[in-house]
């Protein structure tokens, strides 16, 4: 039997004005298990807390009920107080007689009656409480960053700067990501490469950072503080240690038919290649699909010309297994496929391009050497039409319901750059809305309109029709003037929606991190925990969590890094003791609980089970306390009631029900 103390708070007049606290105290004294009850002006005050602490010691209390404000307010306060007095903090429960009683009821009689019932329910629960102890788990002081774009690089650098080891896994041959493909960045118009490449180099050179390019995460097990990850290093066919990055192999390679991924397929590359000149590491890979040696067995030119003898056709995929304390997802984005947008003639005309393709065209290292020209005939375009929200804010299934966020700004950038460099080019932008919330963003957009005279038309484009003369007839609507607009354009640029990188979905499954309907990784709380996944130890950096621009990405990358650092700085993690646990003797091993666990916290083991008249090996559910977050989904899925939740046990809740209903 417990020895319970009940403490009723007046909360000044907040409670006492509507609840007869003395009567609550009197009723409490009659409850089974209650050995002490008193009331006080402000239980949360130092003097109030002293009363609780003193009573715990003096009366030898084994349980405490505080009738006061919401547990969301002061449960932690009172539990800490109880702990200070030598009582297990989980032996204390709150009866919420303020928010759920005194504040909503006017009649003293009614409110008091309800307060007594709430007190009884809390007492009934405490009668069944058991001391709980947080478990401890160790922390591996190394972080894994998945994705080597600006988000991943920044996160890795920040973590490394704090002194922790960090590995970056990047699936392409070089880090750099989307930002490396950009020409200029808004709203400052500084060169993307100029600000990114130093960071890439810094990351590569950092003694705490290891970079696995051309690699993918294969398997993740474990939990916060103690993940085990298998990384597949795809066969590069070039020895990274021997290669000097001289580039001879790429020059001499006879197979030059592959489309350059980096240039969005607008140019060709050799079968042995680095994606771009500033690649980190500056070590090529052999694209085995296009390599003549791999296809026919004959060739081997690269091997012959390599002065360092770095070419290794025999190289195989390698699996590296490493332990990590935290994992950051920074898988970034891609543009949606425009296959279903026939009306814009993207597939039909080479002069209808996406914004990212325009970035490459405008870039000095791009397919046209930085000259703005039509891909069909190489002529400079005189009329360019930009179409916004292609697949963004889209009501139908072809596109995305969300705003891709960056398109308004980069289109303003493109328009401005074109007007600046080629003043005789007409630039028209069709838009639904122009959204420019960001530091210096609206000013930037205004400049495009006012200084550079970019022709912004509010309205959508219905059709782009390639004309026999090679021009493109753009049929749009101007909804402000309420008229149809026909433009003969030389080039049409589509601001295609961005979507999470396709690998994110698979990764989310591996990490048991949740994703939303659009495939973006979900944050633990949209406002208060925006860089954490609901799955402990998994953090989110960059566009994998939702559309964002570079400054936002970098700040989120930093924020994720801080969370990781905070985690890695601990030697041990305290686990939430209100976790589920299966009674081995009753467990059927049926897997129903594991099927509903959102955290992958339940596994099955063949264990020897011992009980009265029982001694056999059975398949039983085992809950990993470090992973379990205590939602209780498993407890209801379990038909036998073998699975129960500490702190909210079946018997505790039943007792509360009984106490309320009697």
């Amino acid at each position, binding site marked *: 039997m417990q020895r319970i103390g009940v403490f009723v708070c007046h909360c000044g007049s907040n409670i006492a004005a509507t609840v007869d606290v003395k009567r609550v105290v009197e009723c409490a004294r009659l409850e089974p298990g209650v050995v002490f009850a008193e009331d006080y002006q402000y239980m949360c005050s130092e003097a109030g807390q002293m009363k609780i602490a003193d009573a715990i010691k003096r009366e030898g209390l084994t349980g405490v009920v505080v009738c006061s404000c*919401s*547990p*969301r*307010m002061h449960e932690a306060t009172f539990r800490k107080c109880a702990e200070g007095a030598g009582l297990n903090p989980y032996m204390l429960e709150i009866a*919420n007689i*303020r*928010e*759920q*009683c005194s*504040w*909503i*009821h*006017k009649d003293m009689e*009614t*409110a008091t*009656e*309800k307060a007594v*019932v*709430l007190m009884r*329910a809390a007492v009934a629960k405490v009668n069944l409480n058991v001391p709980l102890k947080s478990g401890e788990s160790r922390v591996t002081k190394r972080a894994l960053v998945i994705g080597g774009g600006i988000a991943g690089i920044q996160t890795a650098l920040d973590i490394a700067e704090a002194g922790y080891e960090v590995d970056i896994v990047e699936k392409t041959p070089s880090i750099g990501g989307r930002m490396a493909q950009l020409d200029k960045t808004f709203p400052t118009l500084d060169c993307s490469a100029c600000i990114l490449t130093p960071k890439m180099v810094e990351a590569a050179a950092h003694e705490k950072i290891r970079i696995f390019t051309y690699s993918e995460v294969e398997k993740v097990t474990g939990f916060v503080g103690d993940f085990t990850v298998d990384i597949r290093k795809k066969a590069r066919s070039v020895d990274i240690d021997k290669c000097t990055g001289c580039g001879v192999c790429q020059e001499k390679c006879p197979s030059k038919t592959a489309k350059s991924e980096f240039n969005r397929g607008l140019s060709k590359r050799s079968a042995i290649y680095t994606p771009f000149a500033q690649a980190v590491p500056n070590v090529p890979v052999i694209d085995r699909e296009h390599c003549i040696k791999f296809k026919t067995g004959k060739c081997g030119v690269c091997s012959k010309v390599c002065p360092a003898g770095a070419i290794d056709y025999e190289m195989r995929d390698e699996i590296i297994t490493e332990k990590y304390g935290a994992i950051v997802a920074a898988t970034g984005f891609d543009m949606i496929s425009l296959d279903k947008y026939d009306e814009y003639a993207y597939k039909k005309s080479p002069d209808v391009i996406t914004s990212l393709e325009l970035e490459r065209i405008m870039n000095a290292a791009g397919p046209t050497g930085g000259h703005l020209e039509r891909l069909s005939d190489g002529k400079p375009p005189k009329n360019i039409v930009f179409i916004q929200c292609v697949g963004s804010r889209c009501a139908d299934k072809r596109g995305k319901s969300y705003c891709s966020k960056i398109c308004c700004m980069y289109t303003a950038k493109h328009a401005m750059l074109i007007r600046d460099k080629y003043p005789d080019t007409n630039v028209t932008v069709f838009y639904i809305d122009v959204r420019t919330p960001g530091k210096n963003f609206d000013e930037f957009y205004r400049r495009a309109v006012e200084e550079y005279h970019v022709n912004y038309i509010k309205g959508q484009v219905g059709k782009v029709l390639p004309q026999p003369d090679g021009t493109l007839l753009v049929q749009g609507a101007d909804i402000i003037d309420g008229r149809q607009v026909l433009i003969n354009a030389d080039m049409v640029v589509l601001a295609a929606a961005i979507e999470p990188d396709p690998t994110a979905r698979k990764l989310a499954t591996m990490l048991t991190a*949740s994703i*939303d309907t659009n495939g973006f990784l*979900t944050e633990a709380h949209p406002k208060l925990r925006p860089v954490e996944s*609901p799955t402990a130890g998994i953090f989110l950096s960059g566009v994998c969590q939702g559309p964002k621009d570079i400054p936002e990405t970098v700040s989120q990358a930093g924020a994720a890094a801080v969370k990781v650092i905070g985690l890695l700085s601990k030697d041990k993690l305290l686990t939430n003791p*209100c976790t589920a646990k299966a009674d081995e003797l009753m467990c059927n091993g049926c897997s129903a609980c594991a099927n*509903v666990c*959102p955290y992958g916290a339940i596994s099955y083991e063949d264990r020897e089970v011992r009980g009265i008249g029982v001694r056999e090996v059975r398949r039983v559910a085992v809950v990993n306390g470090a992973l379990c*977050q*205590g*939602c*209780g*989904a498993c*407890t*209801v*899925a379990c038909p036998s009631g073998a699975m129960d*939740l500490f702190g*909210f046990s*079946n018997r505790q*809740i*039943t007792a*509360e*029900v*009984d106490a*309320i*209903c*009697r």
Partner: protein
Amino acid sequence: MQIEKTAHAAENKEWKPMIVAFCCNWCSYAGADLAGSSRLSYPADVKIIRVPCSCRVNPMFILRAFERGADGVIICGCHPGDCHYTTGNYYTRRRMALLFSMLDFIGVENGRTRVEWVSAAEGAKFSATMNEFTAKIRSLGENVRLGDLRCRN
């Protein structure tokens, strides 16, 4: 030979509905707190039990409440998609849809059970829901079809 008892003859006291509300810790309990701090009243007949997630609510608890004389049971959780534990309320939704349908099937008035999604920001909705639900229960009257009469002793 079934031992059957009929409902107690009208007790002298006026009948007041007894309503059990299970609220998830993260959204609905906070919503109830907000209703409180906004002084949005609802009947004292509603008594809240805090659970970590609506998916913690076992049908056993609901039937137990009815057995012990509750006249109505309401379960409140985060809106679908907003569950603190990502998926808990989706399971609640299925479980309760089936359970409520079954209760309806055996002839229990289907207004006695309810699931409502209430976010931490919806204090007003919480209060309105509880007012509405209590009114519904009042109109249905005392629960005689599910109660175990012994608990009234």
